[in-house]
């Protein structure tokens, strides 16, 4: 059978050996470092403009959409302005990695080395590190010299990447086109008050915005010329016509607003890629594509110039274009992520400003496209509310089966709106939310970029509590408990001591956020992204400055909540209720990792206590209380960027690493074992069926953590084997959401397949699985993560 266009494009992309492209790094180094006295923002805009004018552009043989971030498909650019230490360290190993290899020629190695040397001591990483050392002093710890933490209770962001974590305002851009943004910036520049103390800063910013927009225009024009040139050499008449059409579209959108679905899609893609060129921040997301593209789709249908098959084909090309953009990370991060994810998230479904369902025919088409492309990137999620038709949930579940790799994920629209309105966001804005990254909830265009300063290891904090503040693995006591834990006579007293530890560590967070946010604003402003974020041109301030009328949200990760609930519940049960063991005995037992017969008996008793995920009120209520601790306490602090510290219980993929620094804990967990992933029950402890898991998880007040939570569920494929069964799961999802659950994502894959893939990875190269908020190729995951997936309970 002949391959479809989608299959051909996929094959064409995957043929490429990922390599490192130095074009960007070279130009940015020259433009930013050549004339250090110029305003930083101007240097960055110049670099952006010059790169877009000079970079290699290409068109794949079957491409229906144009744009690229580096010189070849799957090639990755370097962003030396953020960090170079890890590039220098790993330069010789990029091509020798066991997975996610990047080819670098010897000549390029020299060039990269030279570039890194020029940036040494001048990067974002260096500045953050300076400030952290200055403001935190001895509190700052590190196991390897770069990855910093505070007594292992909090890990600090690595600071090797850009700001990111944003959904730009595509809806407005599609209505007005580039030219009107440019006119806006120019008008604002002329209207600046020269007597304002900030005049020169504002002027530099706006000039940078203008330069960036002109660079974008240039990029589109160059794509248009390339398409025309390629058409001239093309012998196939159909392909020639396609290329000429692309040339026309790229020329048009370089300044004007789009009128058709095709033009709109090309504009969105181009802008999305340009933002990834300006900065390599994670999670630059696409928002609600089915909603903002719908008017164009309708326009085309009415004019008879588009049919569903064509719209779906174009969208499949779009998804593959997102996949084509690649990213280079340090090996440690790459290894646990199982790939080079950019975390580009697309949201489908949801509601309109008036609270009606926004599901439209495009939503269904886009779901179908997902099943046809079967890639792990980009991430697609569906937003399901009270008014979402059941039919759409069913279509989403069918897309999940067709995709086979955990997409789409399911989000509760009503809870998301509740999250945002509770922090004072306007209802209409809240209803327009889109999913950003893994589970964060953002208003496109109105939310600024988001820093993720720290990952709180909550189970580690509980471990410190049990040792009266002492950390057995570092030997350090930062916060000596005011009374000994053995004296506690109720679980509430233990929680009080736990809070004491938390209260000691939390005030470091604003210090860390300040260091990071200050550096982004000072060293790596993003004027192009700012132009696509509401209010920034009017304020004449970069988006990384935060504040202003924008909503600002700094993301605080809280890891290990289910383990903490299980631990407290087990202590409550055995020590205070049954009085079977004393706290002292249990602490003795965890100290020696439950070695010895007596301690093993204690471990068994602990394991047999009620666990989160089984619809048992005692432990679920504890989980509910634990969930609330950090978000409530974080309200007392204010980020440098304004807005708030918004929490999330998502663990990304850190639950394995987090577990490695925690000794045995009274939930029965042995020393070093992984902690629960996200808000999912600890693997293997959920034994009362999927409804019990849903019931337990929906007991927490999800709206308190506006950066969301994730629940991973693993289904055996037989659970989806008929339409009738899919309807049942759709109902279950609906009830889970009615009860207040926020998110669920499903891997539909048998344990036997995962085991077989471990043994015969060569036969499963394309097996995609949902890991945390994203999907990855299973065989490219590190072994620890593969095992984690196998351990999840199967329904």
């Amino acid at each position, binding site marked *: 059978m002949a391959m479809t266009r989608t299959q051909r494009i996929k094959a064409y992309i995957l043929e490429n050996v990922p390599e490192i492209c130095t074009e960007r790094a070279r130009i940015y180094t020259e433009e930013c470092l050549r004339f250090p006295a110029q305003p930083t923002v101007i240097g960055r805009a110049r670099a952006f403009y010059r790169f877009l004018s000079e970079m290699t552009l290409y068109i794949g043989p079957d491409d229906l959409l144009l744009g690229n971030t580096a010189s070849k498909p799957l090639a990755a650019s370097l962003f030396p302005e953020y960090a170079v230490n890890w590039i220098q360290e790993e330069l010789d190993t990029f091509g020798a990695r066991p997975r996610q290899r990047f080819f670098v020629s010897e000549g390029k190695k020299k060039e990269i080395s030279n570039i890194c040397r020029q940036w040494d001591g001048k990067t974002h990483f260096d500045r953050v590190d300076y400030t952290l050392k200055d403001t935190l002093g001895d509190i700052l710890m590190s196991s390897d010299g770069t990855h910093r933490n505070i007594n292992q209770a909090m890990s600090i962001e690595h600071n090797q990447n850009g700001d990111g974590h944003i959904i730009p305002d595509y809806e407005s851009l599609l209505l007005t086109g580039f030219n009107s943004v440019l006119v806006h910036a120019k008008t604002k520049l002329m209207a600046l008050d020269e007597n304002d103390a900030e005049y020169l800063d504002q002027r530099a910013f706006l000039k940078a915005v203008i330069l960036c927009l002109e660079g974008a225009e240039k990029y589109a024009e160059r794509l248009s010329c390339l398409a025309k040139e390629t058409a001239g050499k093309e012998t196939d008449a159909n392909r020639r016509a396609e290329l000429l059409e692309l040339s026309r579209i790229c020329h048009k959108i370089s300044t004007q607003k789009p009128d058709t679905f095709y033009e709109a899609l090309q504009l969105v893609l181009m802008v999305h890629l340009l933002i990834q060129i300006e900065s390599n921040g994670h999670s630059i997301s696409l928002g609600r594509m089915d909603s903002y593209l719908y008017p164009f789709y309708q326009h085309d249908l009415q004019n008879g110039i588009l049919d569903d098959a064509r719209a779906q084909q174009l969208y499949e090309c779009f998804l593959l274009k997102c996949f084509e953009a690649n990213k280079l990370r340090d090996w440690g991060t790459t290894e646990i992520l199982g790939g080079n994810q950019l975390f580009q998230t697309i949201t489908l479904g949801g509601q309109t400003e008036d609270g009606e369902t926004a599901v439209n025919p495009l939503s269904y088409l886009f779901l179908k496209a997902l099943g046809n492309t079967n890639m792990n990137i980009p991430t697609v999620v569906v937003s399901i509310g009270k008014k979402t038709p059941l039919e759409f949930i069913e279509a989403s579940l069918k897309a999940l089966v067709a995709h086979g790799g955990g997409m789409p994920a399911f989000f509760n629209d009503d809870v998301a709106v509740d999250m945002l309105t509770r922090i004072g966001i306007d209802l209409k804005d809240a209803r327009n939310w889109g999913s950003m990254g893994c589970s964060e909830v953002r208003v496109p265009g109105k939310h600024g970029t988001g820093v993720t300063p720290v990952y709180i290891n909550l189970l580690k904090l509980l471990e410190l509590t049990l040792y009266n503040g002492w950390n057995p693995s570092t030997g350090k006591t930062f916060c000596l408990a005011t009374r000994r834990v053995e004296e506690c006579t109720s679980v509430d007293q233990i929680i009080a001591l736990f809070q004491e530890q938390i209260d000691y560590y939390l005030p470091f967070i604003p210090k860390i956020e300040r260091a990071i946010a200050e550096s982004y604003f000072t060293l790596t402003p993003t004027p192009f992204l700012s132009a696509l974020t509401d209010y920034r041109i009017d304020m004449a301030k970069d988006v990384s400055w935060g504040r202003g009328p924008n909503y600002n949200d700094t993301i605080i990760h809280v890891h290990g909540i289910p383990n903490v609930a299980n631990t407290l519940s087990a202590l409550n049960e055995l020590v205070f209720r049954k009085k079977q063991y004393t706290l002292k005995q249990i602490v003795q037992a965890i100290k020696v990792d439950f070695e010895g*017969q007596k301690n093993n008996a204690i471990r068994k008793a602990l394991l047999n206590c009620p666990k989160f995920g089984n619809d048992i009120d005692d432990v679920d209520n504890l989980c509910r209380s634990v969930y609330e601790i950090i978000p409530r306490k974080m309200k007392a602090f204010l980020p440098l960027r304004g807005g708030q510290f918004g929490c999330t219980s998502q663990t990304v993929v850190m639950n394995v690493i987090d577990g490695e620094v925690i000794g045995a804990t009274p939930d029965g967990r042995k020393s070093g074992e992984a902690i629960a992933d996200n808000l999912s029950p600890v693997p293997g402890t959920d034994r009362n069926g999927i409804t*019990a898991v849903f019931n337990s998880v929906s007991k927490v007040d999800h709206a308190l953590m506006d950066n969301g939570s994730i629940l991973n569920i693993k289904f055996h494929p037989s659970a989806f084997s008929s339409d009738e*069964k899919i*309807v049942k799961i759709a*109902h*279950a999802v609906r*009830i889970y959401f*009615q*009860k207040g659950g926020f998110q669920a994502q499903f891997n539909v894959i048998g344990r036997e397949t995962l085991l077989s893939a471990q043994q015969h990875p060569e036969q499963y190269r394309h097996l995609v699985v949902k890991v945390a908020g994203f999907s990855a190729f299973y065989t490219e995951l590190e072994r620890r993560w593969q095992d984690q997936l196998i351990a999840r309970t199967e329904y």
Partner: protein
Amino acid sequence: MDDGPGIRTTVFLKGCNQVCPWCHNPESISPLPQLFYAQNLCVKCGKCIASCPEKAISLENGRCVTDSFRCNFCRTCIEVCPVNCRRVIGAEMSVRQVMETVMKDESYYRESRGGVTFSGGEPTLQADFLFDLLRCSKEEGLHTAIETNGNSDWSVYDKLLPYLDLVLIDLKHADDAIHRDVIGVSNHTVLKTLKELSGRVETEVRVPVIPQFNDTEKQLQDIVDIVGGLCFSTIRFLPYHTFGISKYNGLGMQYEYPVQQSLPIESLVKLVGALDTDRLTVSIGN
């Protein structure tokens, strides 16, 4: 998700009056609580052997074998086991306890038009208990179903009927001699139950298709003819599978059915496709 329409909770009542050698829920055959032993977890530390007051446990061929005649369920071995490889299957529960558990998922039943299914074992063996459970379920407004082998006296079913929305009943073989020979009891009672049920309550007849027992076209056709001859509209064929074998080991039982390969669903589709099912609605697999 199986065992009837919508999302359901299935309550398994232990004890059965047919002994099918391929049974995939061997733990449900005996009416008593049973000791389950997960050999793959066992570290052979010998603690259970040493601690058993009845001296019922011994190490044989690398597994701790429990003599079920000596064992009196004192649970000492479970408590001393360091790796949790021993547990008891089955628990005595009151009607209220069962209903409390069932009602936890009430909203799921309402949304999906699901409910509760009482299965086994053979639930009708605990007729009074089942009657109370069904009555309480109906009082809660739940959709109710039982999964039965049909091998109880009609008077038992008759009493349950007012509280039943759906009966899932097995018909395993049309030939009484083979039925007796393999399952140990005659199929007469089953056939009588089918006849009586016919037209009185929504019923789904289920046929587990077992290689070397009832998997010829003739054998299956005979079953279909019986079902088609009564006022039933649906029949479901379930493929033989061997997922239950590991449970036999854990219970210290022998899996004696000679077929070690599951019946692929495609083969079953082919088998059933050859049958004359006339006006019956046919489903295959769960």
